[in-house]
C-alpha cells in the first residue's frame, strides 16, 4: 500500500515537473539564435540585404551580430 501511494506521488510529481518545464520553454522569447545558429552569416546576410554588399554598413552589421550573440 505504501509503495502504491509513493508510486502515485512520483507519477504526479514527474508530470508536474514536465508540464512546468514545457511552460517555461513556451514562455522563452523567440531569439535570433533560435532562427540563426550562425550569427556571422545572419549579420552578413542582413547587411547585404540592407545596403547591397557586405562591409557597407558596420553599424548595422554590428547591431545584427550583437543582438544575435547576446541572445545565444
Amino acid at each position: 500500500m505504501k509503495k502504491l501511494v509513493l508510486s502515485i506521488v512520483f507519477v504526479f510529481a514527474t508530470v508536474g515537473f514536465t508540464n512546468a518545464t514545457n511552460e517555461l520553454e513556451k514562455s522563452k522569447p523567440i531569439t535570433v539564435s533560435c532562427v540563426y545558429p550562425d550569427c556571422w552569416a545572419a549579420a552578413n546576410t542582413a547587411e547585404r540585404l540592407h545596403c547591397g554588399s557586405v562591409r557597407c554598413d558596420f553599424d548595422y552589421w554590428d547591431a545584427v551580430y550583437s543582438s544575435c550573440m547576446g541572445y545565444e
Partner: protein
Amino acid sequence: MKIKLIIIASLITSAIFAQTTTICNYKILPISEKYKINDTDDELTKSTIKMILNAFEIAKGFDYILKFNQAESSSQIEESIVNESVKSNYLYAIAKALIGKGIYYQNRKEKLVLHQNELMGELFLIKDTLVNDWQIGKDYKKIGEFMCLKATKKCNSCNKIEEVWFAPEIPVPFGPLGYGGLPGLIVEVKNYSSILSLKEITYTKKEVKITRPIKGKKITKDELDEMTGKIRDNADKMNH
C-alpha cells in the same frame, strides 16, 4: 525662377530662426521593394528579410529628434518615450540601426560633427568635419511645407552616393544623423533601405539645452573605418 524664390524666402525667414530653438521630428519609411521574398531565396535570406521587416515595424514607431539653435545641433532617437516591452525586444537594437544609432552633435563655428555611438559593446566618440562638400543639383520638390533642393555626395568609406533634400527657407547647416554643411536644414535623408523624413517642426523661445557628448573613446572617422575593417577581417577569418 523657383530657385530664386527659394533664396528670397530663405532671407525673409532667416530672422525668425535667429533667436529660437527648433525641434524637428523625423520618421522612417522603408523602401519596401528592397525586401521582397523570392521563392528562389534560401532559408537564411527568407528569415533575414522577415526579421528586417519586423525591425522596420518597430523603427516606424520611433521619433528621431533633431534640436538646433543658430550655433549647434544634436539628434538622436527619442528613447525615453519608447515602451519598455519594445526595448526588451531582441529586434530593438536592429531597429535603431536601421535609422541610426547614437547621438550626433554638430557645431557650426567649430565645423565639428561628433557621433557618440556604442560599437561591439564599447562607447566611442567619433569626430568628423561639418563641411559643405555636396553637389547641389537643379532638382526640387515640396516636402511638407518646405520647398527643398536635392544635394548629393560620394561617400568613399561606404561606397555609395548619399542623397539628401534641404530647405533653404531654414538657413542652418544642420540635419539628422550628422548630415549637414548645406545652406539649409536637411529635411530628408535617403538611406540604403529607408527614407528619414521630417514630419513635424516646432519652434520655441525657451532655452532648450543642446548637450555636447563627451564620453567615449575619442577616434576620427578614418580611424574608425580602419578599426571596423580589422574587426570584419577577424570575424571573417574566424568563420571561414
